[in-house]
């Protein structure tokens, strides 16, 4: 019989070891999955994890790494703050879309005027777009006690439809020869979110992600506000006893994560993606949830997890090209990673004993 014994004090060792264990277990299970699909397992894993970093075309792919990791880290670090407090914003995908719509909307509204102030204004517009979209579940929860999980999620579908409406309607490129989608902001110098250092993939959004990681690290680990957020998630009554006003916490967490997701969307639409299209959102808002958990809701962990997850995206693309691996396989792979992580998490809080009497 296997018995679980609660550890008196959560294990620091396991808290950092479990993500690594989970990655290893996912590689093994993923290899089995690829073998089932008739692909060479070792080669597939190698293609995903090794080729983008050290393979023949690594120079190009390393740049792609930051492009993909930037939004993931930016969104996940905001989500992690809320998750720590037990406030579940799972609608980051919607906030990401709204940030993009607002940021791009501003640029398209003033097109073709050139101004050094345009890009900063777009940054603010993007943040506000995500913030306001996050405020909807926040205020509904504060005023009426409505469940924020369901509302924020429903708003993803609303935002997706709004995005499609924009791409086919108001924001459609008048010179686009009837194709859906907006003007390409990459060809609008004042609005273009350019690479800061050519070839690295590092655009303003990547820098913003780094700043967010540092700021949230300071907030959560060093500041009393972060401490209270952590208390709210661990023991809500103790948080109220410590003077936390739950309503303010809800507004703060959903507002912050919404604004960061909005920023990510704005940087994406003005940079790598360039235009508002129907399928502009690539699921970063959902993958960021995996990133947040894989990084143990800790900013530094999220930084690493974001890079790893970006690697699986790029590696997945390569595996698709080189081994004809279906693109959905990588989604399964990411889902498995989260499962293994959640399962192994047990080791942090419980000791596992084999044998002995049944309790």
């Amino acid at each position, binding site marked *: 019989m296997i018995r679980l014994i609660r550890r008196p004090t959560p294990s620091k060792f396991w808290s950092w070891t479990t993500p690594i264990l989970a990655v290893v277990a996912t590689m093994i299970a993923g290899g089995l999955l690829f073998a089932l*699909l008739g692909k060479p397992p070792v080669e597939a894993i190698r293609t995903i994890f090794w080729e983008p970093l050290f393979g023949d075309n690594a120079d190009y792919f390393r740049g792609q790494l930051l492009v993909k990791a930037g939004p993931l880290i930016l969104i996940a670090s905001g989500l992690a703050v809320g998750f720590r407090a037990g406030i579940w914003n799972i609608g980051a995908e919607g906030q990401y879309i709204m940030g993009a719509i607002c940021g791009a909307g501003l640029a398209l509204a003033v097109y073709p005027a050139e101004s050094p102030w345009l890009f900063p204004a777009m940054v603010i517009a993007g943040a506000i777009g995500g913030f306001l979209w996050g405020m909807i579940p926040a205020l509904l929860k504060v005023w009426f*006690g409505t469940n924020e999980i369901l509302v924020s999620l*429903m708003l993803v579908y609303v935002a997706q439809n709004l995005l499609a409406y924009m791409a086919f309607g108001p924001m459609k490129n008048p010179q686009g020869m009837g194709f859906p989608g907006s003007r390409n902001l990459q060809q609008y110098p004042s609005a273009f979110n350019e690479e800061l250092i050519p070839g690295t993939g590092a655009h303003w959004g990547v820098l913003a992600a780094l700043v967010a990681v540092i700021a949230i690290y300071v907030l959560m680990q060093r500041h009393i506000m972060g401490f209270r957020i952590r208390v709210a998630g661990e023991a809500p009554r103790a948080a109220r006893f410590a003077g936390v006003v739950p309503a303010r916490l809800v507004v703060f967490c959903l507002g912050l994560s919404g604004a960061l997701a909005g920023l990510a969307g704005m940087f994406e639409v003005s940079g790598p993606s360039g235009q508002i299209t129907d399928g502009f959102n690539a699921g970063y808002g959902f993958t960021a949830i995996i990133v947040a958990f894989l990084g143990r809701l800790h900013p530094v962990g999220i930084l690493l997890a974001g890079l790893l997850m970006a690697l699986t995206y790029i590696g997945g693309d390569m595996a698709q090209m080189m081994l004809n691996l*279906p693109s*959905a396989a990588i989604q399964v792979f990411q889902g498995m990673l989260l*499962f293994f992580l*959640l399962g192994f*998490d047990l080791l942090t809080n419980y000791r596992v004993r084999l044998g002995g009497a049944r309790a």
Partner: protein
Amino acid sequence: MIVGGIDVVTLISMLMVASTPVLLAATGELVAEKSGVLNLGVEGMMIVGAVAGFAAAVTTGSPVLGFAGGALAGAAMAALFALLTQVFLSNQTATGLALTLFGLGLSALVGKPFEGVRPPPTGKVPFGPLSDIPMLGRILFSHDWVVYLSLALVAAVWGMLKYSRAGLILRAVGENHDAAHALGYRVIAVRFAALAFGGALAGLGGAYLSLIRVPQWTEGMTAGAGWIALAIVVFASWRAGRVLIGAYLFGGITALQLQLQAAGYAIPVHLLTMAPYVLTIVVLVVLSALHRHGAQAAPAALGRSFHASN
């Protein structure tokens, strides 16, 4: 009967079909939540049910086997969730999300070869002269067997929860798992069973989408139906009868929005497609506002992990 360019009888008849997937999923989730477990993975279980049901039906040529396959696949997903949350004591919210993300990926992977394939058709139940009754015949007696099965399941769940010993034990476990354990009930076994039932119904709902409602397999075809099922359970204040009302209300809006599109109203299609989601939010808000100061109907142990301390 035509109102504003829309045939009301067709609308109501469509509504029953449009509601069936979420009705099935919500009824299953109701049972799971009554046992005290919040499974946010309904969307994932539904989509896996949709692809598994589709694959089974196409491969065997039998829609019935397809539905069985969908239910089995949904239950298997739920068992995975149960293993993680009940045995490995993982966070229920996070695990539910993981189940959804995993399910979306898995279904896309499995479903690739089935894109563009037509499933074997499911016939309507022959009611004979009953279906010729004006209006009522088309509304009530013109559907496939799964529609009637879903109604029967709602009734069965209602009766089970209210009158049976099993229902009483289920509610007890969901109210206070420590007390249930102290009385000698097997909390984890009860929750495993409830989750598996919930998963089977979600899978059935998914299979209904791919085999009858659409009917074909497309990636991500549940489009939030699982989440709406979760919202309906909240809307229903954890009562089986109200799950039916909630599901049909939602189905009604979906059917209406499709009819409005068909009737050629000058509303952009994307704004119409938004309607069910917006409505779900509105309903949730109205309901939580009403319940703010009243009795809370949620099972008291909902979402809490159970670990027998000794």
